[in-house]
């Protein structure tokens, strides 16, 4: 049976449902436990730090602060990681300067977690505070395009076209700060071996990033440190850069020559990166018949005072619809906070939110159905880059979504409770389909089991399963004959798991190495069977763990008995094919939502949510659908729930816990549906597959916002949209 395209249950399912999947904090070793004390001011310096009482506390092994940071970590040390934005990365304990509220300022290492935590409360810190401005709004006048990368080139003459448009809108949209909050808190467990080498278990989306950081900061050689990460309890971008617990646990382990574990508390999960707060200004114009004639998108986003975090936000407005007069601007302004961090569909989710709200407003001005308006301005090439798409079946998504949702009859759908207002909204979504270079190694044992290794990750996306499916098909063996291993710097290099490119990058490498191994089997078979010398590769096939030639079959295990030991393993590196940059690769979707708004109470609910996606070849519809639904629910959370609230007087996150930082829960989700349309793509990568982990969140908040307007006649133009917003406007 073919595995690719099959709704395969996860190969790591049995481990996950029995509690045997070992996440970073589950590593069993006699650890010392590390606990971080955080700054209570946002700006200034530490004038004194008294650790005497804490040091004397039972079980405490060591305390680290800026006063005793080893000298070797100060000079010419490289604190960057592969995804560090321009600027100077945060250096824990480097000096007494306070850059943000919640900054780690002391590390207590003790025999137990309780001891470390308690002792941290005994440390006395004196600060000298400086004045600062803690919010994006207060820092707007420092916004500058110099700190941000240049967006896609402007085209046409926006000003003139805008002036000549029949309908125009000028609108501002605001998004609040969002925190990743994977269920698994960030953690690092360091095993200190007797030879002085360390094995570091880190919560990370790519072990290579942790390794690069450790080499740069601690000067460790490649053979003295190995980073592993078998299971990651969600990340959504929080593991794209090594977080400070990696520094802490490693510092303590190396200094104390002992195993050390550090697990962040939930509150500490709000003490590093986040999706930044942004403000968009949109100016759109169209002609009477709904042709989009002018579009300007300007975004100002927050960053830290020490790094220029940037996202691709406004470019999406130059990409999604046909428009010949486009102006794009992007500015950053520093606030007294930690640096923002890529979070699920970074940039796209923000840019498309503003664009898709504005398009809806313009369609409304022009008196045109929002779906028809989008169809009218459909574009089949990338105007930003002036390139064709590798494939784009968005029209099919529109058509299918329209049908499944019953969009055209939506107004005649059942009226419900007289207390409820009913509304419908839609949006387009899109996400990049990129391929990165990736390497893999394959070996076969005498039982005919194949082990494939790659330093990639499975953050819940299904990497273990999907890679096994690809390999099983390409080799012509059953799924249980494949052991896919990941999350280890001893394995061949992989891109970090992010950007929805794992299937296309690692998957293409897996497919290629399996094909390579077919040739290996073929060669050994011919060598030992002189009578088949003249047989061409095309004349044979691989099925049921056998080489088939005509009516004859030869088991892989038998053929490979004749192989030398070296011949049983191979390595392969796969890179995007030459000329791939002649096309732009994107996945697309259409989303439609139904909302109800309580007339008296303002409570907003989403009874129905439909997404139809075009994402190339779907390797595993079961895991792909799950990921897509998950990202749609993220969109709902972003629209109606999530808000990192900063007290601008103190620069402190006020709701750093799950009771007050709301994420979508089971009861928020009602009728939710996603499906894929056929999309054939022979250009995007050898598999023709596009990632889906980020697609579903893009556009969704706009669709909900548009539906709320449809229900109430109010445009909220901010995220999250709360019941008091509905009642207030």
């Amino acid at each position, binding site marked *: 049976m073919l595995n690719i395209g099959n709704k395969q*249950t*996860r190969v*790591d*399912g*049995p*481990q*996950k*449902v*029995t*509690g*045997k*999947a*070992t*996440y970073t*904090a*589950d590593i*069993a070793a006699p650890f010392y436990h590390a606990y971080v004390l955080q700054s209570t001011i946002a700006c200034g310096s530490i004038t004194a730090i008294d650790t005497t009482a804490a040091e004397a506390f039972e079980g405490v092994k060591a305390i680290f602060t800026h006063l005793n940071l080893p000298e070797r970590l100060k000079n010419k040390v490289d604190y960057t990681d592969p995804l560090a934005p321009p600027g100077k990365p945060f250096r824990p304990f480097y000096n007494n300067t306070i850059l943000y509220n919640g900054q780690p300022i002391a590390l207590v290492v003790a025999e*137990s*977690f*309780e001891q470390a935590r308690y002792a941290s409360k005994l440390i006395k810190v004196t600060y000298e505070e400086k004045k600062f401005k803690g919010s994006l709004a207060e820092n707007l006048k420092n916004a500058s395009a110099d700190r941000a990368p240049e967006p896609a080139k402007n085209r046409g003459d926006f000003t003139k076209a805008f002036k000549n448009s029949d309908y125009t809108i000028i609108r501002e949209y605001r998004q609040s700060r969002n925190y990743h*909050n*994977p*269920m*698994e*808190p960030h953690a690092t467990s360091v095993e200190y071996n007797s030879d002085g080498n360390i094995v570091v278990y880190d919560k990370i989306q790519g072990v290579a990033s942790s390794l690069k950081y450790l080499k740069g900061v601690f000067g460790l050689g490649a053979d003295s440190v190995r980073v592993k990460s078998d*299971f*990651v*309890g*969600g990340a*959504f971008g929080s593991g794209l850069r090594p977080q400070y617990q990696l520094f802490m646990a490693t510092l303590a382990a190396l200094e104390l020559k002992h195993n050390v574990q550090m*697990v962040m*508390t*939930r509150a500490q999960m709000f003490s590093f990166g986040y999706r930044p707060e942004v403000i968009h200004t949109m100016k759109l114009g169209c002609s009477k018949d709904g042709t989009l004639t002018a579009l300007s998108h300007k975004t100002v986003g927050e960053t830290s005072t020490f790094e220029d975090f940037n996202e691709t936000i406004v470019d999406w407005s130059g990409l999604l619809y046909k428009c010949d007069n486009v102006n794009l601007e992007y500015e950053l302004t520093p606030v007294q906070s930690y640096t923002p961090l890529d979070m699920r569909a970074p940039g796209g989710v923000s840019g498309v939110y503003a664009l898709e709200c504005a398009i809806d407003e313009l369609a409304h001005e022009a008196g045109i159905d929002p779906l028809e308006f989008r169809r009218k301005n459909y574009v089949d090439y990338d105007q930003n880059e002036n390139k064709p798409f590798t494939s784009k079946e968005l029209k099919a998504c529109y058509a299918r979504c329209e049908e499944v949702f019953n969009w055209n009859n939506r107004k005649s759908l059942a009226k419900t409770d007289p207390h409820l207002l009913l509304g419908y909204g839609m949006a387009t979504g899109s996400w990049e389909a990129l391929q990165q270079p990736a390497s893999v190694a394959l070996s076969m044992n005498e039982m005919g089991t194949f082990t494939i290794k790659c330093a990639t990750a499975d*953050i*819940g*996306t*299904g990497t273990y399963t999907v890679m096994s499916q690809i390999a099983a098909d390409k080799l012509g063996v059953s799924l249980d004959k494949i052991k896919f291993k990941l999350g280890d710097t001893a394995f061949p290099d992989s891109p970090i798991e992010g950007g929805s490119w794992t299937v296309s990058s690692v998957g293409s490498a897996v497919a290629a190495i399996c094909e390579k191994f077919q040739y290996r089997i073929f060669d050994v078979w011919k060598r030992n069977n002189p009578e088949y010398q003249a047989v061409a590769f095309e004349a044979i096939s691989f099925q049921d763990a056998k080489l088939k030639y005509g009516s004859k079959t030869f088991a892989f295990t038998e053929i490979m008995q004749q192989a030398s030991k070296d011949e049983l393993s191979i390595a392969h590196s796969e890179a995007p094919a030459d000329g791939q940059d002649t096309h732009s690769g994107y996945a697309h979707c259409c989303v439609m939502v139904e909302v109800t708004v309580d007339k008296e109470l303002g409570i907003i609910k989403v009874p129905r949510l439909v997404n139809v996606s075009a994402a190339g070849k779907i390797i595993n519809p*079961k*895991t792909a659908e*799950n*990921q897509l*639904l*998950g*990202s749609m*629910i*993220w969109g709902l*959370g972003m629209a109606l729930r999530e808000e990192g609230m900063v007290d601008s007087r103190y620069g402190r996150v006020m709701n750093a*816990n*799950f*009771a007050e930082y709301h*994420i*979508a*829960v*089971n*009861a*928020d*989700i009602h009728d*939710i549906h996603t499906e894929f349309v056929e999309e054939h793509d022979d250009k995007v990568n050898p598999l023709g597959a596009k990632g889906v982990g980020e697609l579903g969140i893009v556009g969704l908040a706009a669709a909900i916002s548009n539906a709320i307007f449809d229900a109430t006649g109010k445009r909220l133009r901010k995220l999250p949209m709360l019941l008091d917003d509905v009642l207030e406007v």
Partner: protein
Amino acid sequence: MNTNPVHFTLNGKPVKISIEPWTTLLDYLRYHKKLVGTKKGCDHGQCGACTVLVDGNSVNSCLCLLVSLDGKDITTIEGIGTADNLSVEQQIFIEEDAYQCGFCTPGQICSTIAMRNRGEINSEEELKDWMSGNLCRCAAYKNLTKAARRIYKES
């Protein structure tokens, strides 16, 4: 250090120990017994990752002091089934793909079992409410609901 005696049943085996009174059931499981299948997602009773069964009811083990469990019957995910011998609930979770990263899964499974033990669910909304004490940041809610419904009806 002050300790208090307590005895209980853990995954079918009687246990008798003396322990510091501030030790939570969660820390006891994870740090003392190395039963790490039960997860710590918040330590504040806000996420449900630490859910275990106490006398068949779901309990946030992070909010529960071990010394308060004298005479109780405690079951963790490790006591529900193993990879070679999966329980019906675990099997259903796999079939329905009721997870992604798997971190919230042990707690979710315990909650579905407690829900079925209680047998008080009358509607889909009640079922979702029951399951809303277990956050899933991967948001596998649709499949979680399917799995919970099957567990409630089938097993």
